[in-house]
């Protein structure tokens, strides 16, 4: 059977559209299964700030942290992104925690003495040996301790 060029183009466009729909959604189910358990023993505050990042992309959130509380900030990323790091900084821009300086850990536990806002910035770096086209879901989760 002869397949027309038009049919091939249409099929390609369709498959790209479908696949882009599939990768453009960060599944809540994935976040709940893969990420939320890692918040324990802290209580997850419930918000799942998740998005699809490509190599080179960034995401961020400014959050309020209350005095007298213990927190965990957890960054959860799909394995397609091999080089995800995060920074936590105060509102003057001073870096308080850099995961790259701590063996690229995916979480940071801390206590807060002064109620304050901090910025959490997540970066999806380049995969080693990759072609720069990898993408994956990345989520910022916060847990607190109930006393």
């Amino acid at each position, binding site marked *: 059977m002869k397949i027309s060029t038009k049919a091939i183009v249409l099929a390609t466009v369709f498959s790209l559209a479908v696949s882009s729909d599939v990768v453009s959604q960060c599944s809540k189910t994935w976040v709940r299964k893969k990420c939320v358990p890692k918040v324990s023993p802290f*209580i997850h505050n419930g918000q799942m700030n998740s998005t699809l990042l490509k190599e080179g992309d960034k995401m961020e959130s400014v959050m309020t942290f209350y005095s007298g509380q213990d927190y965990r900030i957890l960054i959860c990323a799909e394995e397609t992104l091999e080089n995800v790091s995060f920074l936590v900084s105060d509102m003057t821009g001073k870096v308080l925690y850099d995961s790259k300086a701590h063996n690229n850990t995916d979480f940071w536990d801390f*206590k*807060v003495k*002064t109620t304050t806002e901090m910025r959490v910035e997540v970066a999806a770096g380049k995969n080693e040996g990759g072609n720069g086209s990898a993408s994956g879901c990345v989520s910022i989760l916060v847990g*607190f301790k*109930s006393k």
Partner: protein
Amino acid sequence: MKAHHIIILSGLAILPLACGPASTESGEVGNDSAVIDLNKEVVSAENVFIYIPSPIQTAELLKQAGAKYSVDLVNSPENASIYTTTAAMALNMGVYGSDLAFAGIFNQSAETIKYMDCTRKMADGLHVLAAFGDDRKLRLETNINNRDSVLSIITDSYWDCDAMLQDNEQSHASALMIAGGWIEGLYLACRVAESTNNNDIRIRIVEQRSSLDKLIILLDKQEHNDVTLISTQLKELKLIFDKLPKNTDGSLIETKDPETGISVIEAENPTTPQSLNALEFKQILDKITEVRNGIITRS
């Protein structure tokens, strides 16, 4: 959570602890800390998230400040039958969600079940009952004496409702739900502070100013009359908060707890936490009571 993605650069004009003006100079690396390079690329707007404390977190703060549970403070379950419009149901799903969190944090088993039923009723009216599911209610009842499980179930239900409303293209209802939850949380804090004269709770009330700013940003993204009304009322509340002095420059330091090694974050130049004098407290109490009572009495 598309409705919560905003352009942070415009939002910074409203946030009280906004970053300083952009600099054309590179950051410097100090001995103990590093300054972010202000020439870095701006984060894409769709990847910037608003973070608003959950009702569970607000209730936890109240408990740690010494609050006690009182059934007289929360919205009566009997009111659930009067809410018939989308706006009334969404707002009061937030209100009942806060009441549920309040009951859960204070280990009030019977009240927890009762308020789970109220929130389920609202969710049903908004066609997002699947976010709760019969299994979730069963899990709650089965684990009612396991506090961490109860809090986890409550939290998951709240945010699943939020997500489902947005998926159903009811982002205005999602915003109203979050607003209702926040308003009830602040109302409960004010009522507890009023009856106990507890200064720690007054301090916590002042600390809600930043989340109020974020909530207004969230609401203003919605072009819907019902949302505009609540946003207008919250902006009137914001005017009261804006008169309070700001006693922090946002500069923090990180040290280590000598016993556990855990990081400790505190102000570089600590000052006495901001509280409220009698007049300031009354103004906030009166305004939040007006807004909240308007929500629980609307049909």
